[in-house]
């Protein structure tokens, strides 16, 4: 068997693939966090719970309504996005005049509620979710075996990330959004309905989290705690990337996924902590983050 640096190539590429998959989810989630933060100045602690809600929506659609993966991919982000809009209208919108830390505390409380309710309902163990029939099987690439579904997740999340980037950086709607991030009062004066834009932005960010949740369902199992630990890693990703740029969030997400995968090959003991260690180093060298600007 071939080896690179004393590691079998099979294992190396296998871990790199897992790294890319994890990176896809880091990118999707940190992208949603960055979009929400840009306009609302709130770190959405509920993001992990909303990712879990997406996965559970897919699971419930399949078991209760018989609707499969592709329907879930469509329905879950919209449904969870609507709950996000309700949260924004009923709760978050009353906190904008206060210190931003209250938004963090509120969303933390919401995450506890959502995760607690699902743990009561479904227990702590994971529920399996099947890979859609169109994407079972895999390709033999010669140097490794690539399951179709995993290839789909990587491609799909890249497409979603780039589409989001395009929408925000290159379209007129995105222009309004960026302008409102810089100076909401002025944009409001130009006749743009900024409060509605804020609401829809939150719904969109939450929808992205739910989309990630649906895509994650066949890979990791569907469990109430699936988002809780993930979100902390995503926070570290956000600190490393800095929240100044959309492209930065995408690059950092995928990059850190790969680094984590490599760590699993060469020094498995540190694979849980490597992202936090990188965060510490980045904070020492470039406190604003790799792509961030000091405000």
């Amino acid at each position, binding site marked *: 068997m071939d080896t690179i640096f004393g590691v079998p190539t099979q294992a190396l590429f296998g871990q790199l693939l897992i790294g890319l998959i994890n990176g896809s989810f880091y990118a999707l989630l940190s992208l949603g966090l960055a979009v929400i933060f840009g306009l609302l100045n709130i770190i959405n602690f509920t993001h992990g719970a909303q990712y879990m809600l997406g996965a559970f929506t897919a699971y419930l659609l399949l078991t209760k309504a018989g609707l499969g993966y592709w329907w879930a991919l469509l329905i879950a982000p919209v449904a969870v996005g609507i709950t996000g809009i309700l949260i924004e209208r009923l709760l978050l919108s009353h906190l904008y005049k206060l210190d931003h830390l209250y938004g963090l505390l*509120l969303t933390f409380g919401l995450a506890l509620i959502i995760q*607690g*309710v699902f743990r009561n309902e479904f227990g702590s163990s994971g529920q399996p979710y099947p890979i859609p029939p169109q994407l079972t099987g895999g390709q033999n690439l010669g140097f490794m075996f690539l399951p179709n579904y995993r290839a789909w997740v990587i491609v799909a999340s890249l497409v979603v990330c780039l589409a989001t980037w395009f929408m925000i950086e290159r379209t007129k709607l995105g222009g309004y959004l960026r302008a409102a991030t810089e100076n909401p009062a002025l944009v409001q004066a130009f006749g743009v309905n900024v409060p509605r834009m804020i609401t829809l932005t939150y719904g969109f960010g939450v929808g992205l989290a739910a989309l990630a949740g649906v895509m994650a369902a066949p890979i990791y199992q569907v469990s109430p705690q699936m988002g809780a630990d993930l979100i*902390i890693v995503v926070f570290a990703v956000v600190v490393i990337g800095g929240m100044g740029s959309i492209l930065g969030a995408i690059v950092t997400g995928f990059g850190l996924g790969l680094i984590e995968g490599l760590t699993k090959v060469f020094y498995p003991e540190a694979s849980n902590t490597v992202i936090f260690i990188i965060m510490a180093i980045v*904070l020492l060298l470039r*406190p604003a983050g790799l792509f961030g600007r000091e405000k």
Partner: protein
Amino acid sequence: MAAVLHPGTAAASAGETRSLRWAFAGMVALVALAPLAVYPVFAMKVMCFALFACAFNLLIGFGGLLSFGHAMFFGGGAYLAAHSAKVWGFTPELAVLFATACTALLALATGLLAIRRQGIYFAMITLALAQMVYFFSLQAPFTGGEDGIQAVPRGKLFGVVDLANNYAMYAFVAVVFLGGFLLIWRIVHSPFGQVLKAIRENEPRAVSLGYDTDRYKLVAFVLSGTISGLAGGTKALVFQLASLTDVHWSMSGEVVLMTLVGGLGTLFGPVVGAAVIVTMQNYLAQLGAWVTVVQGAIFVVCVMAFRRGIVGELGALFRAKKPV
């Protein structure tokens, strides 16, 4: 902006100082009499968490820094005290002192990183650093992994007083708690505490007055972390247990909740908040995961409608009745 976050700030007018002294005397009496009314271990648990919450409040309430990673100091202190008491045979006072000293170093290292960013970033960074400590505790050889360190001997205080007796242990915890509380009181009302409040209210102005704000924030972070370590170490001796629960992020969330319920930036708020939350956990323990839901709901209610907390609201009532 920051003024909105701290509605119940402890002011230092003569009248307020007098009422604070009375409140402290009341608390000492309550601590002295509590073992007659409630189970001593329960009262000790309340005191450990109250000290933890007071230490946390020193940072958010008086320094304006929201740490979401204080479990690393509490849990770290618990592990260090448990290990030194069980494996190295330290006497209880040495074990707690050792734990406190080590968490001071941990707070210095993490504080140097965390104070490089402000506001929301500060919260995320402390959370991530605490998660790192959590994974370390999960994997390190001396922490016992999922089991934690169990059957920690309480030992003999100064080699003389046997703390296996719950009442002796209670006296020890009471001294630690009241001593820690007085220390925080002193810090808050010292010139250092005043500068800290100035930084909280308006950091650029404090900088322009010539204060090295980073150093003040770091010292506040280290003090807060150290006293949290003291609380955690004491808690490990009380329960004879140090486990992953103590370092988990949900513990960091719990101490935020205690402080928020009691009243951010009030001296006695965290004590009241800790008593309320620990009591609630005790009564709701059989409900399992619903405890999390209830805690989340309290978070939401506090943030939406009750931002001053119990002590802050009482203080406001008191002030409204007696116009100055």
